[in-house]
């Protein structure tokens, strides 16, 4: 009985994890320690993250699927993740594209992060 229930849970609620080279999710960690778990394909919008996670050579990030950003604070990294999702949602879509809101206070830090991340 316990086994059946466990199996059922696996089929319905299995989201994929962070382990392994083909994991569905990756973890982006800001300078102040916040961890952002985001789908791998969304994170690959950034050229820098893409080369870290799937480039040739053995980056440590490749193994653990975690990327530490020592200069990007969490309020900026949160916005970056929102941009990944915004871009993937509305690219090649005929829906009405809403504006991507950026408050002026974070605009400059976001510019520097975007420049670093090449996205």
């Amino acid at each position, binding site marked *: 009985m316990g086994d059946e229930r466990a199996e059922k849970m696996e089929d319905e609620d299995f989201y994929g994890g962070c382990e392994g080279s083909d994991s569905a999710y990756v973890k982006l960690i800001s300078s102040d320690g916040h961890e952002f778990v985001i789908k791998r394909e969304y994170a690959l919008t950034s050229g820098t993250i893409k080369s870290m996670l799937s480039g040739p050579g053995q980056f440590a990030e490749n193994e653990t699927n975690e990327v530490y950003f020592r200069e990007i604070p969490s309020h900026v990294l949160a916005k*970056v993740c929102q*941009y990944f999702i*915004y*871009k993937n949602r*509305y*690219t*090649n879509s*005929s829906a*009405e*594209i809403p504006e*991507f809101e*950026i*408050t*002026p206070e974070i*605009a*400059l830090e*976001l*510019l*520097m*992060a*975007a*420049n670093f*991340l090449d*996205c």
Partner: protein
Amino acid sequence: MHFSDNAVIFAAKAQRSEETPEVRDIASVFASNSLWKPVDETTCCDFSLNGSVFAWSLGQGFVGILTNGDDKHVDFESPFHGLNSCTRVIDCGENVTSLVFLPRIAGSKKCDHDALLATGLRRGPIKVWNALTGDVCNILFDHTSRVTSLTFAPKGLNLLVSSSHDKTLKVWDMADNGNMCMTMRAHKQSINACAYSPTDSQMLASVGGGREVFLWNLTNKRRTGRPTQLLGHRNDVRSCAWSPDGALLATGSNDSSVIVWDVVSKTKVITLGHMCPMPSSIYAGGANGHWVSCVAFSRDGTKLVSTCEDDRARIWHLYDNHISVDEIPLSKVATRCTFSPNGKYAAIGQADGSVKIMCDSNVKIPSLAHLSRMAARKDTKQDKLQTIGQTLPYLINQYLRYRC
């Protein structure tokens, strides 16, 4: 990131972007009447601020209005049949030479709705209409010659500025029932276009004959100092447009070029040439077959549309790896162009009252760096830009100033 100091990009040599945009036509109403010739009119077209109403001049003083009836953006993909699809036709009484949609004006009972349309007419009056019902809200009389352009102040200042062939700009206070506050005189020849900066309610650009491009600083609605002049064009300047963050000003001229200026440092950022090679001074100052009649920026700041005498309208994509160009041939002379608020459509008004709509079904999402740059520039006053620049690394500073 590819602008070098005052680079020149030629339309003929620029890369073509991968997909050609689709084109829809709104046919001319009068084309079947062989006795009618378009004379002394400008087929201007404009979208309302949220994109739900589209107005264009049909000729003979009529303005056609197209709307879905609700707040959604006008849709040109579904088929429509020209005049039969017009929700309304407004008779202005005289040839319409410019039109613009205004935002709501709280405080004035007649003007407190979303479809306020101001039309500038050939002999000088400006009529303000409610585009959805066709009622006149206001008539502003003072210009003595055709009104070439209308622009509205940002941030709720309720000032309408009009430019005219009588060499003056006039400022009208719309909250005060359209009373004229100020006449600005500095142009020596007729003024072809004027535009308010979308972020700075004190900065106004006006362009006109005699190579004049002026930047006005309007601290007060009743008085203004001398404007600063941007030098660089070699022939009459026909049109001006601001980028949505107020950092760049594009001016189109009869010398076959569109110059994009950095407003803070008053220098050229990039020149878009429509004739390759650049015409020598004698042709630039006269007839060269490539007069640029109108320019407009898209709302996300990544595209610029220009219409040229060589019967082509071009959409320039400014921030891909290389500047790429979409060209469409036009069958008649184009007079005005504008982008829709959702970025999907570029409307090009042609001299006989027809409108060509370029549909870009795959609108590209701009890069995060560009979006942040626009957000930062929208909020930064000119004097603060210098202090901010000192805290940033060199390359980022250059990027912020549209220099790389």
